[in-house]
């Protein structure tokens, strides 16, 4: 009898909570075909709370790998899972409000949201390239279906484009994993690191494998040469799905990139850094420039998220602890701002048939002062203006890049953020100084405004007092697996 492997289920407790929640929500949506959405939303929030609690419990577990080396338990995964649960909670509430307003009943939305989050929580804790691939597939498939959930023409096209380019990216990701498997005879991140440092591994194959992995994951976080799908999908998808997708996918995939690039291909860091710097610079410049030319807020936010991905990637050129902590801080502040911004856009755009052109935001300050104020805070943070967390994030990221000696990248980043500030402030000016036109179809209900105040407060508090979480992130930056 072959001895049974040790199964440490406690190691992936958050993932089990999320997948379990997803299964229950799925069965409930199967049996209660016409039930009201409120219990589903509440159950989703409960599952997210349970996952966050179990992630916190993992904080002071000793760092190791579990389940035959497939999953790793470390503080990086815990911080990322907490951020994902936060984003998921907002995604669930915004989705509930969005579907409730037009009484468009799709209870499977909550099951899909939980499955996507489970895939992301697994991705941030993955210690084996096979688990990375499967987690990326689970989260992507769930997101494709969520994008097409309202069957209107826009969302269906967005889902089609997202699917085609997502599958294309997965094929590249796979080819990269196959090459690195060939180079090191193992798919585990730790084994790869050991093989590449020793004589056994074959450097050229591993380098191609790493580049193909960066291409595959670059598609998912919409870095420049692979960002073509982003504006169409962010504009086409329903706003709550866009809010959840833009924030959560970036957190999950960037944390996976940290693990893959810093640990698995650590020894190749010297060869990979120039490629990463080029990708980051390209994303920063093109993202900001293209965003200026937009007449639709969602499309502008899509291009701005391409630029933000560039900023986050610029911290990857320094693989030490400080670079990872800067990336984590940037991810948290970016997620809070972008989820809030898309939430406000959803409230303004008038339900399922969304109109998010600039005319919709003209003179918003007069008609919806609260929404205009909230959106201004989020846009200020995305632009990186001092009182908000976006500014601190940019400082940290550029600090990490300069300490790694990539000061030209920082220069490009500074120029890009100045250009970026222009199109963010233009929207704020549009809301404040102009006269409103057309009928006001903004959503009057007070509860969403309260809910969206939470990310606004986080963004401001993190901006003024970043010391609250920076030391924790420093600890999370220590990577052994």
């Amino acid at each position, binding site marked *: 009898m072959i001895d049974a492997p040790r199964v440490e289920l406690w190691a992936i407790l958050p993932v089990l909570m999320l997948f379990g929640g997803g299964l229950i929500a799925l069965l409930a949506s199967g049996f209660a075909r016409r039930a009201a959405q409120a219990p589903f939303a509440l159950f989703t929030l409960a599952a997210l709370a349970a996952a966050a609690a179990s992630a916190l419990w993992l904080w002071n577990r000793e760092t190791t790998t579990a389940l035959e080396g497939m999953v790793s338990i470390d503080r990086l995964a815990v911080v990322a899972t907490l951020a994902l649960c936060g984003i998921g909670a907002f995604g669930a509430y915004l989705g509930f409000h969005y579907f409730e307003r037009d009484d468009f009943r799709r209870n499977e939305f909550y099951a899909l949201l939980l499955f996507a989050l489970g895939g992301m929580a697994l991705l941030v804790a993955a210690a084996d390239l096979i688990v990375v691939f499967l987690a990326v597939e689970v989260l992507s498939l769930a997101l*494709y279906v969520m994008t097409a959930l309202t069957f209107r*023409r*826009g969302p269906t*096209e967005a889902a089609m*484009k997202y*699917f085609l380019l997502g599958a294309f990216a997965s094929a590249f990701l796979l080819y990269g994993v196959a090459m690195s498997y060939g180079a090191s005879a193992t798919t585990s991140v730790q084994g790869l690191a050991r093989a590449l440092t020793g004589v056994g591994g074959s450097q050229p194959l591993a380098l191609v494998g790493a580049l193909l992995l960066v291409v595959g994951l670059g598609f998912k976080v919409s870095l420049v040469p692979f960002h073509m799908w982003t504006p169409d999908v962010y504009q086409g998808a329903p706003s709550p799905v866009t809010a959840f997708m833009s924030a959560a996918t970036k957190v999950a995939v960037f944390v996976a990139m940290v693990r893959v690039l810093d640990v698995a291909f650590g020894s190749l860091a010297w060869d990979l850094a120039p490629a990463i710097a080029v990708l980051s610079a390209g994303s920063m410049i093109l993202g900001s420039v293209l965003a200026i030319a937009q007449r639709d807020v969602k499309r502008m936010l899509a291009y701005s998220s391409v630029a933000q991905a560039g900023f986050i990637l610029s911290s990857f050129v320094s693989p030490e602890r400080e670079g990872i902590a800067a990336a984590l801080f940037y991810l948290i502040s970016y997620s809070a701002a972008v989820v809030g911004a898309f939430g406000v856009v959803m409230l303004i755009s008038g339900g399922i048939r969304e109109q998010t052109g600039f005319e919709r935001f003209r003179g918003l300050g007069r008609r919806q002062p609260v929404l205009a104020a909230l959106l201004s805070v989020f846009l200020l943070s995305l632009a990186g203006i001092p009182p908000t967390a976006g500014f601190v994030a940019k400082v940290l990221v550029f600090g990490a890049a300069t300490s790694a000696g990539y000061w030209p990248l920082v220069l490009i980043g500074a120029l890009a953020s100045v250009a970026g500030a222009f199109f963010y402030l233009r929207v704020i000016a549009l809301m404040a100084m102009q006269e409103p036109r057309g009928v006001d179809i903004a959503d009057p209900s007070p509860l969403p405004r309260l809910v969206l105040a939470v990310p606004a407060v986080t963004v401001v508090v993190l901006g003024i007092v970043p010391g609250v979480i920076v030391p924790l992130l420093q600890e999370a930056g220590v990577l052994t697996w």
Partner: protein
Amino acid sequence: MIRLPLVLMFSALLFSAGVYGVLARRNAVMVLMAIELMLNAVNVNLVAFSSSLHQMSGQVFALFIIAVAAAEVGIGLAIVILLFRTRESINVDEVNLLKW
């Protein structure tokens, strides 16, 4: 036995044929077929490495890829059918409601 680089070159050729297929074709179903071709090229690559390294994990991974590809095709074609319902055509170029 066949030499490993030959098989790797063969799968590289298939992979690039798939890449060309995805970029050049305009019919959504044909793009999906090209993606399947790329996944098959990766499978051949993995099995070749598994055979040359005398390990089974390459073949196990290829099995997972086949399972994932099947689920992915199912969802892709469901979206294609939905697209056809709302737009009468699945020509990827005509899907430009959200253009620039």
